[in-house]
């Protein structure tokens, strides 16, 4: 009997599988263990994590460390991935033409048109032409309402109001003649005075009709066709709001500017193409397909993408002592996304959804300092350390221990930094591919699309289902079922969307609905994992034909996700393939494939070398 431990050093976790190999080559699997990878995969920093996981696996197996014969480690090559986000559009309001935020409680209802006048100037205003009153910061609602009533009584028709504080209803309720009031305009002092303006507030539950319609604005301000063409973007920006203000200034405008985001150079083995990042993800990916297999890529210096590529190269060169010039970008994934951004020139903190392109890149070397790592391990643990076969081959061997899996089999390893795939043919040859873009990119998409600026929370939204707190004692889950509690929920959770993590419920401090957050989460997973799964299978499949693969086993940390495996199964269903989450050795789930494969590979090699033993 020989006691061995197979150790798989991954990007984020280090996994071990302890087993005993009999003289007849029969493997008895004893236990598995898991720890965080210390340092970057494939470097000597990994030693601490490996020592921990070997100790844990032996303890779980009930074996003494002294009995350990051999540690088998995988040929772990460092894979480093980088992420960058390039915003490619920008909304700019010039001359404070409009206010298009959505205050919780605007006051009154209807449309008011007139010249903008500050509250202080109201008493000096001559009767006659209608005015829109602008109420600055710190003015009490009683005084504002009193002054407006006094002006109206004097024959100065006040037809609408723009207010700094959260006072709209308080003012509207005290007016003798009802007018629309838009409040919470934080930069109210920047509203241009003496200009024609229109204020519109819709009834609760409705949206504005006049100011969101180009011809509505044209009617209000008596615009000619040329001027109407100019004002059209304002109308478009106000669609869907419950309240709005439009001020007619001489050259006021709202523009949708495209930001030059630089270009990306994709160098294939035979071709070299340049693509503009602001052309969008589809264009970038089409160009990439045109030059595949990718030999290297470069981003324009001074752009986010250029910076990201430089960062990835530098990190890899530091780790492997390779000159920066020799580090090659092996894959790029581009995803179209949108980012809520504060509108430049906005008066009330308006946000606009801007287009952006997210990019993931990956570098990989075959020259990992594995020998140094093995020597350090030998010194630390005092046992034989063998560097086993190629990672992909080992993963395939491990995957084959899943009950019900047969050849030809493909594995999809969904990790944090990269998506890997390998396929084995009936003759036992293994083809593998490593693609950029995985769990970390999904987290980053969720973070930016929801405007969270909190990667920790985005990570939780990715991993756990949502619910909404409907009272202090019950929550409604995503699928409509309710759950009740004996203890009241904390006040900061009240009426909020919550993410149900394994450490408790965490409120999501945004105004997004549960449906919206769910949709963003699922779309991010689709755009990264489903796209990459198909891209990977296409590249490893015999003659590029995915139908030739019989079985797909989904492995890796992201295979534990509650919806990703289902999405992938659905996406490959049309190819007539059996696809599912792996269950290594029938017990480990999608984990431990490489560690198990190492033990199986070592045993097979030993038995082949010593046929006499195997027979005896």
């Amino acid at each position: 009997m020989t006691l061995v431990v197979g150790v798989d050093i991954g990007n984020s976790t280090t996994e071990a599988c302890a087993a005993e190999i009999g003289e007849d080559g029969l493997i008895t699997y004893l236990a598995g263990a898991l720890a965080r990878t210390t340092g970057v995969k494939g470097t000597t920093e990994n030693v601490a994590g490996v020592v921990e996981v070997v100790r844990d696996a032996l303890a779980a197996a009930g074996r003494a460390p002294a009995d350990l014969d051999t540690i088998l480690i995988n040929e772990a090559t460092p894979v480093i991935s980088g992420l960058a986000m390039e915003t490619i559009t920008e909304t700019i309001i010039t001359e404070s033409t409009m206010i298009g935020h959505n205050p919780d409680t605007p006051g009154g209802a209807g449309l008011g048109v007139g010249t903008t006048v500050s509250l202080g100037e109201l008493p000096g205003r001559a009767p006659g032409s209608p005015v829109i009153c602008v109420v600055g910061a710190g003015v009490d609602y009683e005084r504002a309402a009193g002054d407006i009533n006094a002006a109206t009584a004097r024959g100065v028709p006040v037809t609408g109001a723009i207010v700094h504080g959260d006072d709209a209803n308080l003012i509207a309720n005290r007016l003798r003649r009802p007018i629309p009031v838009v409040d919470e305009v934080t930069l109210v002092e920047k509203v241009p005075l003496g200009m024609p303006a229109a204020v519109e507030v819709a009834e609760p539950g409705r949206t504005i009709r006049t100011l969101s319609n180009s011809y509505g604005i044209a009617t209000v301000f008596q615009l000619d066709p040329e001027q109407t063409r100019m004002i059209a973007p304002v109308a478009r920006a106000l669609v869907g709001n419950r309240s709005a203000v439009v001020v007619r200034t001489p050259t006021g405008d709202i523009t949708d500017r495209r930001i030059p985001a630089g270009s990306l150079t994709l160098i294939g083995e035979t071709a070299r193409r340049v693509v503009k990042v602001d052309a969008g993800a589809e264009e970038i990916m089409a160009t990439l397909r045109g030059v595949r297999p990718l030999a290297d890529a470069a981003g324009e210096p001074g752009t986010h993408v250029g910076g990201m590529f430089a960062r990835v190269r530098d990190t890899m060169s530091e780790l492997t002592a390779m000159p920066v010039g020799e580090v090659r970008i092996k894959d790029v994934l581009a995803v179209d996304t949108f980012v809520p951004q504060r509108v430049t020139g906005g008066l009330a903190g308006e946000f606009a959804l801007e287009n952006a392109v997210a990019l993931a890149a990956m570098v990989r070397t075959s020259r990992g300092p594995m020998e140094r790592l093995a020597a350090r391990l030998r010194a630390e643990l005092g046992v034989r350390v063998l560097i086993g076969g190629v990672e992909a081959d080992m993963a395939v061997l491990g995957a084959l221990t899943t009950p019900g899996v047969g050849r030809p089999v493909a594995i999809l390893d969904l990790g944090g930094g990269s998506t890997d795939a390998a396929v084995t043919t009936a003759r036992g040859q293994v083809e593998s591919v490593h693609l950029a873009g995985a769990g970390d990119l999904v987290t980053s998409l969720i973070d930016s699309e929801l405007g969270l600026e909190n990667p920790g929370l985005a990570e939780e939204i990715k991993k756990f289902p949502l619910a909404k707190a409907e009272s202090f004692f019950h929550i409604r889950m995503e699928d409509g079922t309710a759950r009740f509690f004996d203890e009241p929920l904390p006040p900061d959770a009240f009426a909020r969307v919550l993410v149900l993590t394994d450490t408790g419920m965490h409120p999501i401090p945004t105004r997004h609905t549960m449906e919206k957050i769910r949709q963003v989460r699922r779309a991010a997973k689709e755009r990264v994992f489903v796209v990459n799964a198909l891209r990977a299978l296409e590249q490893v499949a015999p003659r590029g034909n995915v139908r030739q693969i019989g079985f797909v086993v989904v492995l890796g940390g992201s295979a534990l996700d509650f919806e990703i495996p289902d999405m992938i199964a659905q996406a490959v269903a049309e190819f007539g393939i059996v696809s599912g989450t792996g269950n290594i050795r029938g017990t480990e789930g999608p984990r431990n494939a490489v560690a198990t494969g190492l033990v199986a590979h070592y045993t097979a090699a030993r038995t082949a070398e010593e046929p006499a033993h195997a027979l005896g």
Partner: protein
Amino acid sequence: MLSGDLHDRRADREKRTRPTVVVRYRPVPANRRCLRELGAGLEEEGVPFRAEPVGEDSTARELAYGAALASDLDVGVGVDAAGNTCVHHAKLPPEVPALAGPPSAARGMGHNAARLVVGIPFKTIDQ
């Protein structure tokens, strides 16, 4: 018998006041401003309330819980002699109020008492 029952219930309903948030406060002069701010917060959110002065000396939390029990909307606000405010819900345990704040937070407490009724997330209170 049946019709009698119906009649009684209708009469009952007429006697009842319209559903409001109940605000119970210690009637000291300093609380005038606090009450005005509380009321402004509730009014801005469009939720009706009624204010009741209370004679005995109680904490804001005790006043708020009593007020919540008296409210048809199950939401009450208490204001103690120092102007501290507390928002309570009748379904919560008496010792666990929904929110509590100093006199300077009165406007925000009014907003949030209303939001407790309407069922939308609380406003961050700037004091």
